C-alpha cells in the first residue's frame, strides 16, 4: 500500500489497531499524548475498548485485568509514568500475562523534562519492577520499523505470555515520516488462551485463576525457573540488530539504538566523506541484548564506541557483550539534549588520535 505521512505517536496508535489490539488503557503524559488521543476516537470506530484511567497505576492494572481475561491489550506512557506502571508489569510477568507497553521516553530522574531521552534503558532492561522479571523490549529507529514492531508485538506477547515493551524516545513520537501501515510482519502461532479467566468456567469444564502469589518458596522458585527458561528462549530467538557499514571490518564500531542510531548514521557518512570507515551495531532488541552481533565482530575491530542519549546505561551491556575483547569508549548526552553529528565525528577522531 502507499505510504502515508504520519506523526510517530499516531502511527503507533494505528499500528496497534492493525495489530489486533482489543483494548487500550492509559493516562496522559507528554510526549506520548497523540497516541491515546488518536485511539480515543478510533478504537470506538472499530468496536474496541478505550479507557482513560485515573492514573498510570490504574491503567496498567486495567491492562492486567483485560489481559487476564484473554484480550490483546495496550498501554502507553512516558518514563515517569512507566516507573509507576512497574508494579502492574511485575504482576503481569508473574502471572504470565501478555500485553504491550509503549514507552515514549523523556528525560529524568524525577519529573525530569519532556525532551527526548534514552535514560530508561536500565528501567527497561534490568528489572523495572520487583522480582526476577524480564520484559521483551524493542527500540526501533524510524517510524516504519516502529509500526511493524507494534503490529507484531501483540502476537509476540501472546506467544511468550509476557509483556512486550516498545521504547522510542520523544523524537520518534513527535516526528513525522512516511510509513506503509500495511507492510506484512512476522506472525506467530499462538495457542488458544485456555488459561484466561474469561468467566466461562462451566463451558471450559474447569475454573481458571490468574495469580502471581506462590506462598511455598519451593513452588515460587520453580515458577521463577520456568520464567527464566522463557527468558532464555527469548535470548535464543529474539535478538534483533542491524549492522551498518561493517563490510570493511572497521577498527572502530559504534553501538547505538533508536534516535541515537539515526544521528550515528549521519556521523558514519560524514566520516566516510573524509575517508574514515567506522561501522555500527544497532541493537533493535534491548532485552534480549544482541550478543550475537558482538560475537560475530571481526578480529580487526578494536574499539567499541557506545553512544547514548543517557549517561552510560547501555554501556554496561556493551562491556558484557564485548567481554573484555575491545577497548570500550563512551559518548552520551542526556536530559533531553539531542547530540549533533559533529559531536560524534569529533569523538571518533579523538579516539583515533589516542590510539596512534
Amino acid at each position, binding site marked *: 500500500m502507499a505510504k502515508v505521512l504520519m506523526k510517530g505517536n499516531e502511527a503507533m496508535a494505528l499500528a496497534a489497531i492493525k495489530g489486533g489490539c*482489543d*483494548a487500550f*488503557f492509559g493516562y496522559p503524559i507528554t510526549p506520548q499524548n497523540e497516541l491515546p488521543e488518536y485511539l480515543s476516537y478510533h478504537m470506538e470506530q472499530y468496536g474496541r*475498548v478505550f*479507557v482513560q*484511567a*485515573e*492514573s498510570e*497505576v*490504574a*491503567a496498567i*492494572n*486495567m*491492562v*492486567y*485485568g*483485560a*489481559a*487476564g*481475561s*484473554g*484480550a490483546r*491489550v495496550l498501554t502507553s506512557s512516558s518514563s515517569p509514568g512507566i516507573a509507576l506502571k512497574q*508494579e*502492574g508489569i511485575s*504482576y503481569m510477568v508473574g*502471572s504470565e500475562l501478555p500485553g504491550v507497553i509503549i514507552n515514549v521516553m523523556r528525560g529524568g530522574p524525577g519529573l525530569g523534562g519532556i525532551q527526548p531521552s534514552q535514560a530508561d534503558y536500565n528501567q527497561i532492561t534490568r528489572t523495572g519492577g520487583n522480582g526476577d522479571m524480564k520484559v521483551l523490549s524493542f527500540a526501533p529507529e524510524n517510524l516504519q520499523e516502529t509500526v511493524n514492531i507494534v503490529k507484531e508485538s501483540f502476537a509476540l506477547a501472546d506467544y511468550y505470555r509476557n509483556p512486550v515493551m516498545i521504547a522510542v524516545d520523544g523524537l520518534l513520537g513527535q516526528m513525522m515520516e512516511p510509513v506503509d501501515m500495511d507492510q506484512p510482519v512476522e506472525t506467530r502461532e499462538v495457542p488458544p488462551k485456555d488459561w484466561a*479467566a*474469561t*468467566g*466461562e*468456567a*462451566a*463451558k471450559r469444564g474447569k*475454573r*481458571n*485463576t*490468574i*495469580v*502471581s*502469589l506462590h506462598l511455598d518458596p519451593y513452588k515460587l522458585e520453580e515458577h521463577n525457573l520456568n520464567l527464566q527458561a522463557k527468558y532464555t528462549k527469548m535470548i535464543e530467538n529474539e535478538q534483533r540488530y542491524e549492522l551498518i557499514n561493517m563490510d570493511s571490518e572497521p577498527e572502530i564500531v559504534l553501538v547505538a539504538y533508536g534516535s541515537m542510531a539515526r544521528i550515528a548514521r549521519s556521523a558514519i557518512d560524514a566520516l566516510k566523506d573524509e575517508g574514515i570507515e567506522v561501522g555500527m551495531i544497532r541493537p533493535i532488541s534491548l532485552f534480549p541484548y544482541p550478543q550475537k552481533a558482538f560475537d560475530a565482530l571481526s578480529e580487526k575491530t578494536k574499539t567499541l564506541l557506545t553512544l547514548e542519549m543517557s549517561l552510560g546505561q547501555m554501556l554496561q551491556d556493551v562491556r558484557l557483550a564485548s567481554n573484555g575483547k575491545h577497548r570500550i569508549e563512551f559518548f552520551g548526552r542526556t536530559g533531553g539534549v539531542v547530540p549533533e553529528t559533529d559531536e560524534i565525528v569529533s569523538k571518533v577522531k579523538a579516539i583515533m588520535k589516542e590510539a596512534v
Partner: protein
Amino acid sequence: MNTKTIYQPNTGLTDRDFTYCPGCTHGIIHKLIGEVLVEKGLIDQAIGVASVGCSVLSYEFFNCDMQQAAHGRAPAVATGIKRVRPESAVFTYQGDGDLASIGLAEVVHAAHRGENMTVIFVNNAIYGMTGGQMAPTTLIDQKTTTSPIGRKKVGAGEPIRVSEMLAAVPGATYLERVSVHDPKHIRKAKKAIEKAFDVQMSKQGFSMIEFISTCPINWGMNPNDSLNWAVENMIPYYPLGVYKDATKEGGDE
C-alpha cells in the same frame, strides 16, 4: 421414607478449607456471595478479583474464574475485565486497608466512571493479614499495633466512612452497608448482595456492599465479644443502611 432437602453444600465455593482465623466473618460473607452467584445462575459467568490482605486467597475459595490483584487495584483490574467481558458478572472482594487506604483512588474512580461491577468491601477496622496495624477505618481510641495508645484524631485523622463518601460520587448506582453479626442481619446482607448483582446484570452501573466485619485475633477478643464489639462500637460510627439507590426502582437520581 420421605426425605426433604433442608440444606445443600454451597457450590458457589470450592472444597478448599478456609485460611481465615476462627470467628472471623469472612467465611459468612464468602458463603453469601457463593450462594447468590449460584442462585442467580451467575457462577458460570462470574469473574472475581481477589485483593491483598486476609482475603488474598479468596481466588482459592470462590468457585468461578478469579484474578488476583495488586494491593488496592482490584477495581482497576475489574474495570479491565468488565470492559472486555461485558457479559460476565464481575466482582471485587476487598478489605478496608486495601480499599479505603492504598486503593481509594481506584474505587472512587471505578464508581465515578459508573463501571458496571460489584465491589464487596469488608470493613473490620484493622489490617488483619499484616498483624493488626491501624487502618483508615480504625475507630478513635481503638488500639492497634501502630496506634498502641489508641487512634488519635490529631495525626491519624478520623476513620473514613467509605459508603457515605461514595454516595457523593455521581457515577455510583447502589451502595449499602450491612452486617453479619446475627441471622437477621445475615439474611439482610444476602439480599443486599442480590441487589448489587441485579444492578450489575441489568447494566445499571456501579454497586458496592460494605460489610461490618470482625477481627478477633487482632482485636484481642473471642469471636462472640468481637461481634458484640462491632455492634456496640462500629455500627454507631458506620450506620447500616442503603446509602444510595439510583436504580430505576430506587430513584435517588
